[in-house]
């Protein structure tokens, strides 16, 4: 790789890359993000490569592994270019028929096309799939087109053009001004205006400044940052290099979770390529800008997503936060001014430079601009990553993009913003999703995790679940968070066991308030959100557990009983075989019976029973406390 010494050389390289790619040559792109890889994408790629080789077609058809397309539910996903034919749930055994289709006549393989469960129609192209049709993929648009391990692919789709524009004559003030006018707000959760943060950094006069990319995506149920790093790492690097120019930083850090091995690997490759081409290093593109990026892997601590804890972790200490001010912009890494932004925030910067602040500001709502990426997971038909303009409603997210709730169940709540967020009830489905509206509803944007819950989800159990998580992850430095999470978890557990009292509810509320007001960092200040929102919207469920010893969703083990409905049981013995404690009695073709004393309520019988004869019931008469 020759080092690029000027913007002109970069443009020439791009032209050469574009010329080298024959756009009429068929290209099979297979999603190789973590989800599709787990579903067997590598085996599919291998089978395609072997199949092409066997037929002597390896020079006529290209096979490419790309980043995450977002529709994880249907993986492994594949697109055939240039037509853009979209296939889902591809298996290695399908390789032969796919190759045959591409090499002769190009008739699509009907059975691998996506079939819309609502209309029953077969869909040919990705953008016709309802899951994608309502999305606006500003950050994720290129994920399905480029090989993340090839910088040339990124150049082909216009990569590093924003950097070229910046070093060709935009002053730091102009770049910061653009970011301010765009209305971009931090995508990590709190939504602080990025331009304001950058402006504050710009005013600092220190000789050494740092920038950090916060890729410690710790919220359970969220994986947007991972997918962006896996699928388009150069877009994040480009944003950081532009940031270095605007903020006067000579060194940058990417703090990424070690739990994301593929993201780490792709970042390493991308950093290496950018250094080889001279897009990182000394005197980048002869602009006088010198900037380097180091990769730091997190060691598994949720609190390290908090900026002061993250800095402590990079410095080799335990990730304990410290009070702000001083803010990192004043006194950050090694005591120097530091700007920390989320992965998606950095990746938005090249878009703003390329397409203009006004374009970016035209997307979204009055105070929340641009697009937001959500991971739509849980009890929803179409799980995956979704990028939408700010301001779409929950109803659009769940029913138009998400395809509704599986098995015809009722939607109960949507949990937004991870453990710091809250549960929004089905009655608020028309809520437009932006920073202010979510905060008003008691939740928060967070990093974009969106977990859908149906009638079979117990809201007290969910509150307990989050509190258990936060109790584990509280660093223990400040008293309100350390003790508060423990006490809240203990009370919630008691309620789940049917041992709660009505006095517990005001106690939960009081302690939640205390934690919010007095905790040291964001973790403790928001830790009670799941408790507060479930109490606000689902108080009747708490009361059912307390007064009637009943779990309405039939989840809490101490409050449920399993039995078999004799008229429905066909005596197939499937439940007998799967029962871990030999609690089910019954011979073949005879009605089975569950011995309650032996039953551990694991629910395995319920999973396997075809005629749906296994019943779960809950109520005081069944479970005396």
């Amino acid at each position: 790789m020759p080092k690029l010494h000027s913007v002109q050389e970069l443009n020439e390289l791009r032209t050469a890359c574009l010329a080298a790619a024959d756009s009429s040559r068929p290209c099979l792109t297979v999603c190789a993000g973590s989800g599709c890889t787990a579903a067997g994408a590598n085996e599919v790629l291998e089978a395609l490569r072997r199949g092409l080789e066997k037929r002597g077609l390896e020079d006529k058809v290209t096979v490419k592994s790309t980043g995450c397309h977002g529709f994880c539910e249907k993986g492994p996903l594949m697109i055939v270019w240039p037509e853009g034919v979209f296939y889902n749930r591809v298996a290695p055994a399908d390789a032969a028929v796919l190759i045959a289709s591409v090499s002769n006549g190009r008739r699509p393989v009907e059975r691998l096309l996506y079939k819309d469960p609502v209309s029953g129609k077969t869909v040919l192209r990705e953008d016709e799939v309802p899951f994608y049709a309502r999305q606006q993929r500003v950050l994720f648009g290129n994920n399905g087109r480029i090989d993340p391990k090839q910088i040339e692919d990124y150049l082909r789709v216009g990569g590093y053009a924003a950097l070229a524009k910046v070093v060709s004559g935009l002053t730091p003030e102009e770049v910061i001004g653009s970011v301010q006018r765009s209305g971009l707000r931090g995508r990590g959760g709190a939504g602080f205006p990025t331009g304001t943060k950058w402006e504050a950094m710009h005013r600092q006069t220190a000789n050494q400044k740092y920038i950090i990319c916060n890729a410690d995506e710790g919220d359970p149920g969220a994986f947007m940052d991972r997918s962006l790093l896996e699928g388009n790492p150069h877009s994040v690097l480009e944003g950081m290099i532009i940031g270095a120019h605007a903020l006067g930083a000579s060194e940058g850090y990417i703090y990424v979770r070690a739990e994301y091995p593929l993201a780490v690997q792709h970042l390493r490759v991308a950093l290496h390529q950018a250094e080889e081409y001279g897009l990182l290093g000394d005197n980048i593109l002869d602009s006088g800008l010198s900037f380097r990026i180091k990769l730091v892997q997190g060691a598994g601590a949720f609190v390290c997503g908090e900026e002061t804890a993250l800095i402590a972790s990079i410095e080799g200490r335990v990730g304990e936060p410290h009070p702000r001010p001083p803010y990192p912009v004043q006194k950050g890494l090694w005591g120097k001014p530091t700007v920390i932004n989320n992965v998606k925030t950095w990746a938005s910067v090249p878009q703003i430079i390329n397409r203009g602040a006004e374009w970016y500001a035209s997307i979204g709502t009055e105070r929340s601009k641009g697009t937001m990426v959500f991971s739509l997971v849980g009890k929803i038909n179409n799980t995956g990553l979704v990028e939408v303009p700010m301001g779409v409603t929950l109803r659009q997210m769940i029913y138009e993009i998400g395809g509704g709730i599986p098995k015809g169940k009722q939607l109960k709540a949507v949990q937004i913003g991870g453990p710091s967020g809250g549960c929004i009830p089905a009655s608020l489905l028309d809520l437009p999703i932006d920073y202010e509206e979510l905060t008003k509803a008691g939740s928060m944007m967070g990093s974009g995790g969106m977990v859908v819950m149906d009638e079979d989800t117990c809201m007290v159990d969910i509150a307990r679940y989050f509190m258990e998580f936060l109790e584990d992850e509280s660093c223990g430095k400040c008293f309100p968070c350390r003790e508060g999470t423990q006490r809240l978890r203990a009370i919630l557990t008691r309620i789940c066991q049917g041992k709660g009292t009505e006095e517990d509810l005001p106690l939960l509320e009081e302690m939640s308030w205390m934690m919010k007001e007095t905790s040291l960092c964001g973790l403790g200040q928001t830790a009670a959100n799941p408790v507060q929102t479930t109490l606000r919207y689902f108080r009747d469920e708490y009361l059912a557990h307390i007064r009637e010893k009943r779990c309405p969703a039939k989840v809490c083990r101490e409050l449920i009983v399993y039995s078999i409905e004799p008229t429905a049981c066909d005596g197939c013995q499937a439940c007998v075989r799967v029962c871990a404690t030999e609690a089910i009695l019954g011979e073949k073709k005879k009605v089975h019976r569950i011995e309650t004393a032996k039953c551990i309520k694991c629910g395995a019988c319920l999973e396997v029973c075809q005629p749906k004869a296994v019943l779960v019931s809950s109520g005081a008469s069944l479970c005396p406390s």
Partner: protein
Amino acid sequence: MASMDTEQAEKILGQFEAARASLIPILQEIQATYYYLPQTVLRRVSQKLDVPLGEVYHAATFYNCFSLEPVGSHLVQVCLGTACHVRGGPRVLDRILRDLKLPEPGTTRDFSFTVRTVRCIGCCGLAPVVRVDNRIHHHLTQAKVGGMLKLYRPKLAADQEQITANETEDAQATLSAGTE
């Protein structure tokens, strides 16, 4: 054995600058090499970086990815992220523990398995998921747990042939189960 221990650790220590900022990356390398942090090695790290042993221990116990206990031949990581939680992850965990006769997450007596829980490995679309070593098993149910574990159970030489046949079947069942 003891000399082996320090030899590898010295090699790791040699790759990093002897500064406090190297502490966590060094511990990560040691964890990746030994699958836990042996006490003798931690003492050596403390010496080399001139960081008090108590602080090394603080870091080693603060971060989730470090373990002070040796782990078994196969590491079973059960995801309990929110998506896995609402789709039955805790029940899968219970079944795994029951099958391996463990009262709680930990290592089996024969050191063939170590079970740990993790909070989200980012495969929420495929929930509930379990990662065994580097392989992800997805869309799990309790009924699939037995077959999954069998893929990793220690084999007796006499049964080898039979098991290999079953294993292929199980593997196919697990794979096809994921795509239903």
